């Protein structure tokens, strides 16, 4: 094994694992290298992406609609509180024990995990649109669906993307324990440490952490990009009132 980054100790071995492959300690197979990291990352992204797409398709329209008609607030807000109380490992274990292992079952578990923050934020975002703005739109002759699409959705988008961001990071983090449900992801070197060795496990931890931070930063940039210009202008004065996280609002 070529140890290029030996000066960094165990972290050096882990970085070396990311860039160069070597023979597995149980013999037979080659482990490590960018090619294998990518082979593990691709199913990780596929699983997370599929779960997020389904969760968004369910909770964004539902949250917008509940917010528009002003009903179901109790459900939309408390689903977050309940969702937070169920540990992700327990949720996956329930699915494995009752439905069995596999991509589809695991994806369903991740969808359930991703829905609460998006739903709560979509509802809160729609509700906090100024009633006067909605009245003005109605006065201009807009119909209900037009108000949702052209007034409430744009104004709620920053919060909706805030929810998507929370869920995406959470789903990527949880997809790390997917090998427990029989799906190979970046968590494979963490769960099957015998094959990959300690440096493989640490390497996987580094890659997963980077992936989560990159997702957070990217979606944060998207969130700023979708914020309507009018909201940005007033945000300086209103910022301190936007941040409070009480039980009635979203998770950070």
């Amino acid at each position, binding site marked *: 094994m070529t140890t290029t980054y030996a000066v960094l*100790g*165990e*972290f050096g071995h882990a970085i070396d694992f990311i860039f160069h492959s070597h023979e597995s300690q149980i013999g037979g197979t080659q482990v490590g290298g960018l090619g294998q990291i990518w082979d593990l990352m691709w199913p990780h992204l596929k699983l997370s992406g599929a779960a997020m797409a389904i969760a968004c398709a369910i909770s964004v329209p539902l949250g917008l609609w509940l917010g528009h008609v002003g009903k179901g607030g109790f459900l939309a807000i408390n689903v977050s*509180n309940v969702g*937070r*109380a*169920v*540990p*992700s*490992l*327990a*949720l*996956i*274990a*329930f699915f*494995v*024990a*009752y439905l069995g*292992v596999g991509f589809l079952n695991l994806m369903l578990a991740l969808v359930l995990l991703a829905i609460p923050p998006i739903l709560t934020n979509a509802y809160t975002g729609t509700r906090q649109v100024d009633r006067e703005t909605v009245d003005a739109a109605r006065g201009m002759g807009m119909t209900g669906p037009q108000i949702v699409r052209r007034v409430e959705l744009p104004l709620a988008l920053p919060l909706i993307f805030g929810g998507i961001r929370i869920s995406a*990071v959470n789903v*990527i*983090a*949880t997809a*790390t*324990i997917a090998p*427990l449900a029989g799906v190979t992801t970046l*968590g494979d070197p*963490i769960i099957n440490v015998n094959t990959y060795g300690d440096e493989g*496990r*640490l390497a*996987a*931890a*580094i890659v*997963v*952490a980077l992936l*989560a*931070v990159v997702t*957070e930063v990217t979606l944060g940039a998207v969130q700023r990009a979708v914020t309507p210009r009018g909201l940005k202008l007033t945000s300086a004065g209103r910022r*301190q*009132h936007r*941040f*409070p*996280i*009480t*039980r*009635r609002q979203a*998770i*950070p």
Partner: protein
Amino acid sequence: MTLEVAQLQIHHRTDTCESRNGFCPSWIADHFGDYVHPFLQHLVLTVLAVAIGFAISFTLALVAHRRRWLVNPITQVTGILYTIPSVAAFFLLLPITGRGTDTALVALVSYVLLIIFRNVLAGLDNVPEETRDAGRGMGLTDSQLLWRVEIPLAMPEIMAGLRIATTTTVGLATLAFFAGAGGLGEKIFSDIAYKSNVVVAGGLAVLLAAALDGLILLTQRAITPWTRAVAQP
């Protein structure tokens, strides 16, 4: 290693309900004692992590409340800590702090920081300027104003942050066994496909989160009697 233990347990199951992998009340009654120790480990881990995290982030928030330029850097650093997946954090800390409860605690504390910091700061910011003026007019010094006016009025937000932090930590602590700290997650992991085991261990984790959440809510009601008139519906 742990996986082998799980397989052994499967072979030992000869009773019909267990061999059919059902939900077995009799098995649960016989083995409930095995869950007490992991439950207590889980409880201690959660309470310690939240207490340490609260002490750190409450102090940070008080400092940032007076020195506003600190708000952004603290939010960004704690934000990155919050983003790093807990499983990754446990293994990233392993070469530095070794296997055991300490590693799990460091990682869990790092998740609590952002939640409580933001809420304490938001609570302090939401105190009306007129109230502060009234306090100053009554001759309160800055620190008297903080402890007698601002913090009591910020209590609802502070306690809300504490509740979110506690339920989140109970969830994350199920993964603390990766760092060698035991807890209910270790029981779930030991036999993840066995319904009775998953229901008991997972159920206890959910119950723990709900119980701690309720306890904090009751405390909040007791120490902020003036909010009860406008209590949530």
